């Protein structure tokens, strides 16, 4: 039973106020895109056993979408941030690295790899 901080209204929201929206930071591939890109945009998922970036909506609250960095095993929440973001804030990446040294997010490539 998660509690996530909504970065828009500042509420520490109970899971039952929220609705989850799957993996965050996917790039939309529209008409004309490559089959592989389109397939991976729609279906292929990181699904990590570890830190994951994911989308949530404060559905029963302010209605805003936000992103959360959450560990899928320990349920630790490293932080939440607005959905209008291309990549996770550095402080959140730092926090993940502190909790899990050597951690690396595939799509972030080397950038995401912290000591």
């Amino acid at each position: 039973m998660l509690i996530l901080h909504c970065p828009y209204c500042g509420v520490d929201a109970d899971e039952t106020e929220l609705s989850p929206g799957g993996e965050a930071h996917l790039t939309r591939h529209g008409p004309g895109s490559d089959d592989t890109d389109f397939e991976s945009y729609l279906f292929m998922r990181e699904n990590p056993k570890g830190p994951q970036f994911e989308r949530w909506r404060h559905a029963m609250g302010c209605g805003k979408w936000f992103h959360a960095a959450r560990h899928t095993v320990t349920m630790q929440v490293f932080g939440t941030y607005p959905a209008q973001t291309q990549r996770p804030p550095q402080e959140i990446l730092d926090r993940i690295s502190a909790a899990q040294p050597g951690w690396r997010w595939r799509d972030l490539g080397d950038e995401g790899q912290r000591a």
Partner: protein
Amino acid sequence: MGHRAAPVMSQISLNMPLRRIYSDAPGRTTGRTEGTPMKRYSAFAIAREAFRHHTGWTRAWRSPAPKSRYDVVIVGAGGHGLATAYWLGKNHGITNVAVLEKGWLGGGNTGRNTTIIRSNYLQDPSAALYEKSRSLFETMSQDLNYNVMFSPRGVLMLAQTEHEKRGYLRTAHANALQGIDTRFIGPKEVKEICPIMNTEGPRYPVLGGLWQKRAGTARHDAVAWGYARACSDMGMDIIEQCEVTGVTRDGGKVTGVDTTRGRIATDKMGIVVAGHSGRLAEMAGFRLPIESVPLQALVSEPIKPCMDIVVMANTVHGYLSQSDKGEMVIGGGTDAYNAYTQRGSFHHIEETVRSLIEIFPMISRLKMLRQWGGIVDMTGDRSPILSKTPVDGIFINCGWGTGGFKATPGSGFAFAELMATGKSPLTDAFSLDRFREGRFIDESVAAGVAH
């Protein structure tokens, strides 16, 4: 000293004189450490043992150390992995097989599902596979000489909205052409088959239901144990406490796996790890259209028999049956976010119980004895994947999501065929490339369906 010992340690164990024992041609007896054939189970055997305090029973399956190489390595000793190994041996004569299990066999979703077995699926490929499976359940106890308590007591899928009713009518028509024995029945017959049900609503009066008479349940653990015993008896190695931690490749071809008990070579490998499929795929270097989410179930305290069928109420997301021991076994919903905790959020339990009380008012005065969760692997179209993969020699069997227990024998049968021969009519439609092509197998179309 646990099973997560460093690989170095298990390397040592490879040098132990195991090869001598297992390098013989696979057969009924030679595979067994004790050198004694597997004891047949029967009432007479029990009676005989009763007079010597049951000291004569031997291990149901051996506990060998891994060899350095196998013809086939199956990762995951859940029902599907074990069934695959069984049919590889039984139908294709491949017995130099290892089934690697990171924990205790059957401890994944096989050991934590609500055991509903049915085959009244809408789409042809699903119906073919699940019906193959259901029919194999009919003879499984005899085939394995292990009573898996297949109980074809009938499964009823309730129609509580017009939409759902129309969906089941459609399924009934499809089933008739697929050779699956189902029937849409009216509310009166529903009440006769299941008197404890409140068919009158008030909220969602029962409009009827899709009734499959030879669907039912089986003892889930026994399915895993029975297969393990049979596989072991064919000389296969079921290696528990052996986690696969890496996949080795030579270019585009698989060469083996790294495990917590050392490296094992093979050029053919089947990944059958349910919720952990994404992890294994990552080790092998590809991605899957899969998300892992917790699915929960619960049991009540045991009571005297009061319900002789399985009821699935999809409008309100509740599934109910009574086990042979007397507990009401209840399945509910999944969390909608990825997690690898075998727990899940409490509000799903609440939703499920609330709904079932509406349909079965008497359970209000029963107590929940235990709740638990499993990690299910959900694909983009909620249908399984039985397929070759981008890596030569690696096959994947996953994506059974909330409903793969019923498919255990059929999945093993078909997947073994795919692995052994490169093709199976039962798995054709379930290949990985369907997501790229937009060729989905969507079962939710008739009415939301799970399990």
